């Protein structure tokens, strides 16, 4: 079930009404309702993978208990390893089996040996990367004695499979979500309206920005050999806004939905395209994944301790792993490596935590230095997205090569009236995002103090914009494939 589908428009009000009106007297009943709803939500893609989700849940629940109850370090390690191996084993099989089989055959081919690996037609279970990481963070935190395991299976299952975050995050932590699942929840008017507001902005990002950009990004990337350099640059820019609108739009809808049910999810985006360096970008893009890798990979590897080479090695490791997490393709790994490379000067000169505050805080406009820094960071990001979007590394290099060899300064061939409308929408979107960059999402506080008719007109205008400009085909979210 997609958030941007009619099914979800029916599903959510039903869950909401049952949750607050029918089952509101009992926390247990509310949690069971959410759990059943989450499993139903997931089964709309493929009910067969419910068993995998359930198995992963049972495994981590009991591993957590076993780690906690183990009296020796050896036993604790055993249960931790068991959970990690099985979780990553499933992830590896469903997501990476064919990649490894084909890459191995290519490697042998390069050595002059012929191999016909047995590739399997494996369907990737939606959200497997996300719920696997939920579960792993839980057992890691118990192993590291940050939390005690829950003994309530329903609550733990809900933590793993809560439907707003089940298929594309944010990747939650037990320390943050479990306490909320364990406590009785009261309806909070301000939180619910905030949730609706965030959902509304999420829909704008998804159906107005991302899906309209996707039309042109797909056209240009799928026929890149036919286009001039200027069109290819336009294609990369469209993809840049597509992926941001798509993923952060999904996240806004997820967080907004959870707020309607009285639950706060982790923030996942903080206006990343207004970053002044790549380190800041990665503190603002897919925050829940970046912080996951920071806590469970970067820090255990030594983090920022040690010399420059050690820190650069660790940076490369987490970016390469992060790239690989996105998908079984060399393009993602290269994209990760490229970002690591962009980080090198910052890590080397220890300036990676220079830009912590929001850009131009308290001011309407950035100064020239900030503007140039943002432009450079944005340019690097756009360049890296080419590798993320391309079908293969060969395609990516060809794309980059063609940008510089084919009339970079000519008029883009694909420029059309409807494309200009999309560019106008992107421009308006950037302005609104800039206005709200100090908040959790762009329209969190815009108009909040206005008189009600004016405030409602603003939201109604957003709805009108969606109706008049939304892309008319239901398009799945990009991150569902990860």
């Amino acid at each position, binding site marked *: 079930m997609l958030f941007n589908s009619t099914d979800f428009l029916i599903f959510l009000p039903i869950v909401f009404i049952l949750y607050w009106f029918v089952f509101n007297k009992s926390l247990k009943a509310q949690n069971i309702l959410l759990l059943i709803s989450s499993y139903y939500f997931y089964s709309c893609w493929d009910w067969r993978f419910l068993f995998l989700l359930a198995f992963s849940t049972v495994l981590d629940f009991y591993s957590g208990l076993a780690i906690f109850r183990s009296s020796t370090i050896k036993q604790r390690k055993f249960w931790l390893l068991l959970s990690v191996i099985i979780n990553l084993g499933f992830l590896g099989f469903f997501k990476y089996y064919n990649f490894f089989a084909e890459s191995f055959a290519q490697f042998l081919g390069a050595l002059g040996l012929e191999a016909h690996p047995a590739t399997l037609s494996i369907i990737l279970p939606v959200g497997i990367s996300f719920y696997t990481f939920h579960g792993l963070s839980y057992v890691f935190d118990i192993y590291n004695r940050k939390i005690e395991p829950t003994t309530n299976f329903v609550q733990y299952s809900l933590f793993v499979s809560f439907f707003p975050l089940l298929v594309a995050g944010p990747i939650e932590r037990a320390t943050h979500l479990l306490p909320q699942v364990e406590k009785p929840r009261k309806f909070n008017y301000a939180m619910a309206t905030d949730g609706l507001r965030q959902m509304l902005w999420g829909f704008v990002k998804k159906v107005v920005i991302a899906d309209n950009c996707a039309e042109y990004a797909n056209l240009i990337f799928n026929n890149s050999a036919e286009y001039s350099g200027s069109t290819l640059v336009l294609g990369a820019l469209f993809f840049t806004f597509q992926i941001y609108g798509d993923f952060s739009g999904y996240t806004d809808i997820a967080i907004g939905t959870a707020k309607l049910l009285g639950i706060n999810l982790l923030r996942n985006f903080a206006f990343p395209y207004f970053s002044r360096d790549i380190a800041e970008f990665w503190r603002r893009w897919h925050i829940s994944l970046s912080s996951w890798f920071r806590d469970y990979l970067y820090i255990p590897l030594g983090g920022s301790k040690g010399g420059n080479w050690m820190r650069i090695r660790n940076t490369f490791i987490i970016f390469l792993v992060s790239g690989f997490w996105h998908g079984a393709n060399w393009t993602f790994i290269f994209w990760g490596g490229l970002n690591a490379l962009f980080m090198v000067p910052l890590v080397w000169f220890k300036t990676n935590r220079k830009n912590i505050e929001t850009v131009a805080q308290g001011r309407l406009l950035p100064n020239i230095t900030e503007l140039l820094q943002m432009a450079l960071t944005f340019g690097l990001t756009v360049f890296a997205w080419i590798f993320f979007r391309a079908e293969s590394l060969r395609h990516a290099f060809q794309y980059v090569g063609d940008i510089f060899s084919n009339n970079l300064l000519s008029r883009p061939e694909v420029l059309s009236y409807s494309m200009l409308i999309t560019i106008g929408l992107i421009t308006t979107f950037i302005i609104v995002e800039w206005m709200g960059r100090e908040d959790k999402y762009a329209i969190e506080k815009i108009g909040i103090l206005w008189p009600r008719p004016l405030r409602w007109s603003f939201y109604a205008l957003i*709805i009108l914009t969606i109706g008049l*400009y939304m892309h008319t085909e239901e398009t799945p979210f990009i991150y569902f494939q990860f």
Partner: protein
Amino acid sequence: MFLFFRNLLLFLLFSGIFYVFGTALIGIFAPRLTKNLNYRIGTGGNLYTRIRDADTVKNVDVMVLGSSHAYRSFDPRLFKKHRLSMFNLGSSAQSYLQTKVMVNRYIDQFNPKLILLEVYAGLLNTDGVESSVDFIANSPIDNDIIKMAFEVNHIKTYNTLIYGLFRQALKLDRGYKEPKTKSNGDVYIPGGFVQTYETINEKELLSFEEENIYRIKSKQAAAFLAIIQELKDRQIPYLLIQTPILSSRFRSYTNVTEIDSFYKQYGPYINLNHELTLPPSSYYDSHHLNQHGVDTMNAYLFKTYGAFIEALIANGNQ
């Protein structure tokens, strides 16, 4: 909680009203600035004129329904030579959802002895949006059109409907007159036909090497069956017919047999693509005939199926 629901309902009401007036205002002042509002009065297909023409006609021998393949193929002047009065209610991309509107609106008025239902296979796969906005802009909006818009269920159709209702209420199209001759060479011929002598350009002559497949949308299939049922209930004879498309295009489809079998189940069916191979000079584009093609096709139709058509008129589908 009560406050939340009360305010939510009030907001939904407020935004609903805002949406209607906002859409109307955008439609009036900046229609080209939107992506999902497509009110185009007097566009290709001459539906505006056809509807006004049809409203003046009563009792015809043959009523033609279908897409642009219909209004660019069946010429009332040629039917007249065979002593048959005919009105062509075809319109651009008319899917079965819109054909139902035509049937409901004109069947009693026309009281036809035979219905020629043009059944281009591509119609089974259309979402009906293009034709729905054509109907909304060029035909008076009545209950059938509103019902059709809900069946199409598309944001573009809804927006255009809202704006169309607004224009209709304010009578903004009162003074409009559609030119009989269009800049692309199309000439409207009374009786619903559109004549052209333009010939297919070379680009479109390129062979269609890709393997194409006709698909069937359940919504369109259901609308088609509803039309057939309506005609059967009213005991009006009908003939399902596919008009010729450029032979290279026709050959590119790999499941023609399946489509032929589908239509054959529901009554007498002719696929002229199997019988008549016309040269490219008979085509306006890869889909549509020009007047040379129309003359040839109509002559062939009456020569080969004239007696059958007469029998259908005389005896019905039995």
